[in-house]
């Protein structure tokens, strides 16, 4: 098992499963056993234990899951081996920005597992900035399609590259929502290379984005940050259970 596989197992066991189960209880209290939550998951066929765990715990079922991978070859493998439906061949963060994207018709989802580490990310500058913008576009889509509450999981690789907070602010502010505040980066240290600072920044920015789309009720939010054994960085996963006001 590679390092990233064992880390993903820990994320599932110590963070994702509990919050997804709580999501089932809070969002669908009348569904006593089978919660039947619709899920979008960024994943790959050889490291997708979340599928079996979520299905085993009756929070979702195979027919309600759409897998995504940026490589068509991998999406095909997911579809023929693990799921009823998989999409991809596009970088998710780019695809979700497109108003004609093929994924749009599938929204809204109850669970969004945006695990960017599963997409063979290129560790280049402004990767996290693009991912955060992808999350904002995803939440906007959820909101536009009338979603009332969701579990959102964001997983990424933190390296020593500093965050470009101004870029995040500029891009986020360009998605204008009437009556909503612009993103504030006050109090966050830009050019930070320290991962604890980065986590604080990312959590703060995500919280503001939740609020921008009226997901004001954060029922639960948690995170885990685990070091990759090859020293190339840390895996950060933030999981939130959100309801709209």
């Amino acid at each position, binding site marked *: 098992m590679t390092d990233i596989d064992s880390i993903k197992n820990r994320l599932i066991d110590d963070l994702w499963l509990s919050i997804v189960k709580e999501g089932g209880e809070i969002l669908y209290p009348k569904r006593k056993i089978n919660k039947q939550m619709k899920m979008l998951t960024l994943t790959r066929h050889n490291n997708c234990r979340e599928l079996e765990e979520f299905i085993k715990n009756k929070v979702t079922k195979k027919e309600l899951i759409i897998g995504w991978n*940026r*490589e068509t070859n991998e999406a095909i493998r997911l579809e023929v081996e693990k799921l009823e439906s998989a999409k991809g*061949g596009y*970088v998710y963060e780019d695809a979700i920005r497109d108003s004609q994207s*093929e994924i749009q018709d599938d929204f809204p989802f109850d669970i969004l597992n945006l695990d960017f580490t599963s997409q063979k990310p290129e560790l*280049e500058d402004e990767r996290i900035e693009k991912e955060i913008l992808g999350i904002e576009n995803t939440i906007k889509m959820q909101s536009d399609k009338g979603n009332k509450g969701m579990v959102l999981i964001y997983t990424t690789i933190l390296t020593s590259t500093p965050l470009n907070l101004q870029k995040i602010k500029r891009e986020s502010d360009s998605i204008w929502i009437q009556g909503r505040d612009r993103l504030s980066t006050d109090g966050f240290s830009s050019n930070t290379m320290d991962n604890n600072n980065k986590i604080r920044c990312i959590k703060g920015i995500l919280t503001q984005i939740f609020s921008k789309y009226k997901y004001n009720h954060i029922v639960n939010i948690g995170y885990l940050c685990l070091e990759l054994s090859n020293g190339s960085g840390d895996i950060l996963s933030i999981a939130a259970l959100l309801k709209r006001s």
Partner: protein
Amino acid sequence: MVAFKVKDLPVETKKVHESQNIWRRKNWEKTLSENGNDIEKLIDKIRLFDTWKTKLLKIDVAKILIPEIFMDAYVSIHFAGYALYKYAHMSLRSELETALRLVFFSTHSIEFKWWLNDDNNDKDWYSTTSDYPYVWGKRYSYFEHLENIKSFEKKCGDDEKKLFGGKKYGIKGLYTELSEYIHSGRGHFQTRPDRVSPKYDHDQFEIWCYIHEKVQMYIHIMLVLGFAEEFKKMSSTNRNKILDIGIGDDYKEEIKETLGI
């Protein structure tokens, strides 16, 4: 859903099912065990279409045609793996034609809609005689007029190296060769006098593999020249992958010179 049970199949269907299973498995395993590395190289070239797909996301025609280009290349491997060489080549011609259409339609959105919504197979708008079988007009002259292609062809020099240099060479030559499989030209049959079922053939595989590689290379060249601005805006990692893996040494320098990168 009705469970699939071989024993419940009608007699002749059952026979076909069982024999197909056997020859497909035999051919697939033989092909992969002898040529796994060659196929891996082809897959690496095909995977690059995902990079194009993301980069050309805003272009409607690309969104529809690039997945089709990918699938033709992918299925061609499938057919070749089963020793269905004629159909493996047919997929490649379909792939090449779709890629050329993509470059043409990317600047002809009205024609694209006509073509896409043409329920009656009404080709009047582009095909008035047999000289005009393609949506882009007579033979390949449309492409030869495109600035980037014109400049690229000049840098290539000899007809043998040009994309549209002579009947036997480049895209023209490849297209003609692949069409032989569509029209079952002499020597381009699926069947062999000595056999009744498809069987792995090393020489046939090598011919197909060589042609497959060329088709992917020419398609990447056409996309780079047809979508030069988008190509230039790619990350250097992705650009280099397309140049090194997709196109390779035969044309890499001419591309760089043409685009000034």
